[in-house]
């Protein structure tokens, strides 16, 4: 549940309680937050700034966080919004979802047939971290993001929908498309390793 990011609630924490919530609920996620930020920006300094901004915002708005709800999803949503509002603007990248106009296409059942691939199971067994990481990193940001949230961080579709501000159906279709693209990338690596 990520109720705290659904409905703005106000809990007035004392300074001591704020420090406790911040230290016990927010800071343990710094590792995955930094990795998410790095995979969005591909720049160590920007990732560091993005995480720092996220934590400062989280502290500033801590009264809208309800203890016991999903702090990780709450922080991820702040980080994602900071990235879209601040960092994408700075780097003059589009601030809106890149693939909105073709999202309807992804929702189409027709795309399911794309899933057939010539990637073989044996080929994937020989793959190393670099190849997997490069394949993931080469995906367009919206596709990369859903794979990270789902497969690396284990968020549910509902949590992802709330973090990304998109309907669950869009999460599902975007994931489907992202996985097809990832499989294609891995397939290319497999060919380069001599699997034909």
């Amino acid at each position: 549940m990520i109720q705290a990011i659904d409905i703005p609630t106000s809990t007035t924490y004392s300074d001591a309680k704020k420090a406790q919530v911040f230290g016990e609920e927010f800071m343990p996620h710094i590792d995955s937050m930094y990795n998410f930020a790095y995979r969005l920006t591909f720049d160590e300094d920007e990732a560091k700034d993005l995480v720092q901004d996220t934590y400062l915002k989280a502290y500033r708005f801590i009264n809208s966080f309800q203890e016991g709800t999903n702090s990780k999803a709450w922080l991820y949503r702040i980080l994602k919004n900071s990235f879209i509002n601040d960092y994408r603007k700075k780097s003059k990248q589009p601030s809106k979802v890149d693939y909105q106009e073709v999202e309807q296409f992804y929702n189409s059942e027709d795309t399911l047939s794309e899933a057939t691939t010539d990637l073989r199971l044996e080929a994937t067994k020989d793959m190393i971290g670099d190849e997997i990481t490069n394949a993931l990193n080469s995906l367009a940001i919206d596709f990369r993001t859903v794979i990270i949230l789902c497969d690396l961080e284990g968020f549910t579709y509902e949590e992802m929908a709330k973090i990304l501000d998109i309907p669950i159906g869009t999460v599902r279709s975007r994931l489907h498309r992202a996985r097809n693209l990832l499989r294609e990338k891995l397939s290319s690596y497999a060919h380069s390793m001599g699997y034909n």
Partner: protein
Amino acid sequence: MSDYPDCRCKDFEKCLRILNLILDNEASHDEESFFYDHIEKCMICFGHYNLECQIRQLLKTKVIKEPVPSTLFSEIKSKIVG
């Protein structure tokens, strides 16, 4: 050569949709039952199931993790306190 050169499973699209839901822990009980019954009889979907499991496993275990800068934690702390 592909493992699935010519998909002849008549339920392939449905299976693939359910496969993703199963691996994401989002499938209903009925969908799970349908799929697991189906892959006992369909090698195409069984192969695809194994491949998808393997890709998920690779993502979970082999994607390189970036080390968090050693100063980040203390910098955040100092800005909050200070």
